[in-house]
């Protein structure tokens, strides 16, 4: 069984007793999807078209949920408690669940709002500050410093073949915006393959080369966000960075050859 994405995204969660149950569940789900995605190229075209987008989106959502939980354990513990209650039922929408729009994706600030005097104004109402994983506040406080730290790491991790080119071509000031937009596009594409919204021929939109490329992009985004999360010292379950890089390398190596 392949476990690199699960291990890299969940990190060393075992050391945190109060959320071990939640992260174990997430870990198992991620392992399952990771494995299925790696087996997918052996399936026929129709299976790939029907299942690929679902597997991809599920993996992406679970990895992002895990990372949200590692940045902000309060958020995931809260959801865990809600779901333990008798009142929680699967037949109705849960308002407290971790949402793609809000908890993970957050619209970027307008350029005028991105300037330091606006972002960090003392008049800012904290309740209205976006806390989405890919929002600009997370970007400024966590992702950008983590990205710069990766670029400047004295161990020169970015010199490694699979870690290199795409990452190295991104200026740090564009990292969050580029990642947010890339991930959002990827999520939308996968969603179109999951929902029955396509009334046109889905076999043309989701043919084998397209779905397999989407799967490899899912792996790469999961790998990159998970890797960087280990550069943020305030996340829980942070791994030794060198170990994280090894996991990242093997995911990237598989994704680069995926379906080829």
């Amino acid at each position, binding site marked *: 069984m392949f476990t690199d994405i699960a291990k890299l995204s969940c990190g060393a969660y075992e050391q945190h007793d109060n959320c071990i149950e939640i992260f174990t569940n997430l870990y198992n789900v991620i392992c399952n999807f990771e494995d299925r995605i790696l087996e997918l190229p052996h399936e026929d*075209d129709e299976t790939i078209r029907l299942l690929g987008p679902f597997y991809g989106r599920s993996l992406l959502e679970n990895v992002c949920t895990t990372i949200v939980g590692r940045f902000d354990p309060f958020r995931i513990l809260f959801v865990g408690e809600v779901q333990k209650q008798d009142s929680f039922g699967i037949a109705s929408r849960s308002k407290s669940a971790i949402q793609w729009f809000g908890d993970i994706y957050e619209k970027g600030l307008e350029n005028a709002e991105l300037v330091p005097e606006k972002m960090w104004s003392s008049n800012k109402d904290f309740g209205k500050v976006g806390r989405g994983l890919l929002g600009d506040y997370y970007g400024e406080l966590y992702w950008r410093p983590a990205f*710069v730290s990766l*670029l*400047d790491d004295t161990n*020169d991790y*970015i*010199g490694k*073949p699979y870690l*290199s*080119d795409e990452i*190295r*071509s*991104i*200026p*740090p000031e564009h990292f969050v*915006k*580029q990642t947010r*937009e*890339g991930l959002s*596009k990827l999520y939308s*594409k996968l969603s179109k393959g999951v929902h029955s919204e*396509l009334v*046109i*021929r889905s*076999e*043309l*939109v*989701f*043919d*084998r*080369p*397209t779905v*397999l*490329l*989407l799967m*490899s992009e899912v792996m790469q985004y999961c790998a990159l966000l998970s890797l960087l999360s280990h550069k943020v010292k305030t996340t829980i379950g942070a791994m030794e960075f060198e170990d994280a890089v090894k996991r990242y390398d093997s995911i990237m190596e598989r994704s*680069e*050859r995926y*379906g*080829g």
Partner: protein
Amino acid sequence: MEDKYFDSSLILAAEDFPDDEFEKYHTFSEYENKILRKLIAHGPVLLRGGRGSGKSTLMKEAYFRTNRVPVSTSTLGVYLSLRYLPLLKSEGLEYEKIFCKLLIEKIKNVIQKYIETEVFFEPEPNVGNLQQALFDLSSKINKRFVLFFDDAAHIGRETPLKDFFDIFRTISSSYVSCKAAIYPGVTEFGTRFDLFNDASVIDIARNEEANSFTPFFVELLKVRYPVLITDYALRTISLEHFARFMGRAVTGNVRAFIFACNYLLDIKYSEVIALADIEATLKYLASEYYWPLLEELEPKLGGYEPLIEPTRILAEKLFHLVSETLDKPDYGPSCLVHREHVERLKKLFEIMEYAGFIVKRDASRAMKSGGRGTRYILNLCNLIEVIPNSRLTHDLVEKWASTEKEYCQIFRGGELDKIILPETSEKKDLGILEMSVEVLKKSKVYPYGLTDHKIDILKEGEIVTVSDLAEASDDKLYSLPDIGEYWVNRIRSVLGQAIWM
């Protein structure tokens, strides 16, 4: 008599290979295959790379694959080179009409070649009509269109680019995937086109640190230069070492690699390739390939023509600065340039990248003096020209073949601050168009250029300038003495290189 002999060593550009010879002379490593997968899959893609980096090769290979089983079960590929002078000279609705006419013709050809059932495809030459017709046709033949637009952007003429990207965006749909090849430095995408939202951008940069780098150049040597790589010829250096070093010397650029190998074949004094032969090849490339490239580029830059001289100055300074650090342990042939310089001299760096003097390796790295900079690797040909003693030794080959730990850092101020940027104007016409057809003569720059005899024939037929030739119809060319199908194709090909590179 017509010269029908096909000589692959003369061919520097993928677009000049006849389709039936293409496969025989091209090879694709893991790196190229990764890009090809993106070019075949659904979704808009911009493929960005300097001259000779392999854009057209990848576009053509992807086109062939989309029309070959198994991919062709769901796709129909259409390859369209936009090397067409009227497109360069037009804007707005006129551009749209010319563009659509060209594309419609190409699609018809592809349908005729690959679709067995009878289909109707006669849209009006406007984007709205074409888009609808593509949608209808796609539904009927049950295939997704993959449109490959090669040479979509001309380095010296940015105005029509806005129109192109408008069309690119509008025509992309659920059944139509658009892919276009562009150069580093294309900045005019128009107001409706968002570079990162409306397309994925792939930069072609063969990285010598990647595992696929050496095998790619080894394979290329096997396919194109079997005589160069016999055990006998490569007695002093292993094939892998030779391929990697030569690949790195030209910063992974295939066109320059081919140019280098051709020269090496010519000058090899004995059956064995000696270090002196490699050194002579690098120096030859510096003086006969890289520097002339800047001159060749000048009349094709339109309003940016005045930037060639400062680019030359910048290149000289950069190579000198790096050469001064090369004696230090761990220092390699690359440099980290402070972002203020890169910002101010942006266009010059882009021209240098386009011409293959440098390749951007890191967008942002910390500098020792504080602040951040961009790291570029340098080609080894222009570098060996300026290093003291200027000799290629085994030690140097060894050093340049390994990954550097340190590199020259070019801080704020200093030498690069002295470079003055002249005024440029976007509207200026391309100088090459008004030049005499004499410039198309067979030469090192145009190895498959025209003979004196053919140039005289053109002139006698009142085709005096490059522009006259570009505007001459095939019928007009056929009406001239001694010009048949072979020469019409060769004229079109050299013309394409002269105007578009």
